[in-house]
């Protein structure tokens, strides 16, 4: 079996790297995107103060506090204090207030907006004549720029496009122009053929991601706090999952136009709802549920946890398991649906 898989894999890789125009496009585009976004979002993305509020049930309903009377401030409900504190450290929240017991708050000593938010908070309590002033806790930490935050998402997005189109489009083209017909006449089995396509694309995706990563590191000073092995595993599992999804789409289609349409239909909602460009926090529950159903969401989350929060392999095991299981389910479906013609 494996010599046949290898023969198809080698041929497919050759086709990929000899197509120099396509190859350049695969590598240059994501780097350009990261640079463009770094340029566009050089400033802070929002201009109002953002204050996190820890409440008992994770919503602001029924919470009473003189603080909440302050206008032109966005209050974000936070279910638990610990992740909220991390956000204060990263300047993603200007202040975190805990209203569950006696009021307490966290402020980042290095944040100018945090200082203003603190004045507002204390002012509100004094004006309201509240008995207890909130207890002050302090943290420190560098601001996380938008470019730093968005980079893991852009890497994952690039993997998604490359995985979906790299097999989906190619197999439909092979079916249309008769390459599959020719291969069908040989002892090659569908499983061997699909395995070769997956391995070839996985190599390409990981290789291209490495180049994009190195390219981005020339232009941007982004954090990589966690384990490189964990990052590679997350991207490999995510890529496997999306390649398998591409194989399901390509299992029977005969025209590239239809394949293109369906792949677009799959990829654009993922791009918008997987938190690649903006955080899904604070969006509607329906959008969040939809987001959770998308493999890209879990790949982006895990990649961010590794790169920004310094997670290791064990920390991202749930995502790895989920992505791998989903990949196996999709792959089985694809092998079952697959037709040479």
């Amino acid at each position, binding site marked *: 079996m494996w*010599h*046949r898989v*290898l*023969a*198809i894999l*080698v*041929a*497919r890789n*050759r*086709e990929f790297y*000899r*197509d120099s125009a396509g190859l350049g496009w695969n590598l240059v585009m994501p780097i350009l995107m990261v640079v463009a976004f770094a340029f566009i979002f050089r400033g802070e993305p929002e201009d109002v103060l953002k204050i996190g509020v820890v409440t008992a049930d994770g919503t602001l309903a029924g919470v009473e506090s003189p603080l909440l009377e302050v206008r032109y401030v966005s209050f974000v409900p936070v279910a638990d204090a610990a992740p909220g504190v991390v956000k204060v450290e990263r300047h993603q929240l200007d202040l975190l207030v805990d209203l569950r017991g006696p009021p307490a708050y966290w402020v980042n000593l290095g944040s100018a907006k945090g200082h203003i938010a603190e004045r507002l908070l204390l002012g509100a309590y004094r004006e309201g004549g509240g008995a207890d002033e909130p207890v002050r806790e302090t943290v420190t930490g560098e601001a996380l720029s938008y470019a730093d935050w968005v980079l893991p998402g852009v890497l994952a997005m690039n993997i998604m496009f490359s995985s979906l189109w790299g097999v989906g489009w190619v197999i439909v083209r*092979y079916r249309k*122009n*008769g*390459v599959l*017909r*020719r*291969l*069908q*006449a*040989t*002892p*090659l089995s569908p499983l061997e053929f699909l395995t070769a396509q997956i391995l070839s694309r996985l190599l390409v995706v990981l290789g291209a991601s490495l180049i994009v990563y190195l390219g981005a590191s020339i232009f941007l000073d982004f954090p990589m706090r966690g384990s490189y092995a964990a990052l590679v595993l997350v991207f490999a599992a995510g890529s496997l999952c999306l390649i398998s999804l591409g194989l399901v789409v390509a299992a029977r289609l005969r025209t590239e136009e239809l394949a293109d349409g369906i792949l677009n239909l799959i990829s654009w909602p993922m791009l918008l709802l997987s938190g690649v460009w903006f955080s899904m926090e604070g969006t509607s529950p329906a959008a969040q549920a939809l987001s959770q159903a998308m493999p890209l969401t879990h790949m982006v989350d895990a990649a961010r946890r590794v790169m920004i929060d310094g997670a290791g392999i064990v920390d991202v095991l749930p995502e790895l398991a989920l992505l791998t299981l989903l990949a196996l389910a999709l792959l089985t479906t694809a092998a079952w649906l697959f037709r040479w013609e």
Partner: protein
Amino acid sequence: MPPLIEARDLVRLYPGVRAVDGLSFQVARGQCFGLLGPNGAGKTTTLEMLEGIQRPTSGSVLFKGRPLDRTYREAIGIQFQATALQDFQTVAESLTMFASLYRRTADRGELVRLCNLEEILDRDTRRLSGGQRQRLLLAVALVNDPELLFLDEPTTGLDPQSRRNFWGLIDGVRRRGKTVLLTTHYMEEAQYLCDEVAIVDQGRIIAQGTPDKLVREHFPATVVRIPAAHWPAGEPRPAGSEERAGQIELYTDEVPPLLAHLERIGADLTELRVATPTLEDLFLKLTGHSLRT
């Protein structure tokens, strides 16, 4: 010894169409067997059932007296009518790739010589001419040194020169003892290559035999055509003559006596034409009246 391959009552139905309608024949070892017919006659469908690519709706295919199994693919080579090779590969790389898919492979040097590929081994497969492409596809079909070679309209679309060259290659393949099963709609091709031909129309075999025998049976040597309006009124037409599209067709082994006869009865010979019958003529003769309008 059973025939190398045998079709028994093959039927293939597509929605609303009987593409192949009860077709049976046998091909002996070392033979070159041709399925002849117009486009849409069911030749390619028949061939694909024999290749094991399509399943017959009913009927069976036997290879060496046994139903087709997993090892069949190792024993046959196929040249499809419409097929492509992966892009961005040279001729040599394509051959290597296909060779790796089989257990047994033909000797590389001999294959390259046989298919006349020496000079294009390093060429990208996208830059091949029609004739070079067909030669490469033939080499791919022979890469596993198959016992049985299928050729589906191998020279359709080639210029006459390339077609002649390709026939030469098939001669070489046959000298190596291979059995060949081909489809074509060129009578000339069938006559040159095949030991036996079956003429297929609307999914059925309507005539079968050696090319010479078929020609002798169904074709007088020559057809003479004369516009119906130029036939003298009241004069009886010779037996076996037919009228088609305003033309009276007369079949004859000897042209001069026929012309003398026409002159005697006072026919207008100004638009008379004499032609050697073609495959088209054979079809019209065999099927024109009863099966189609």
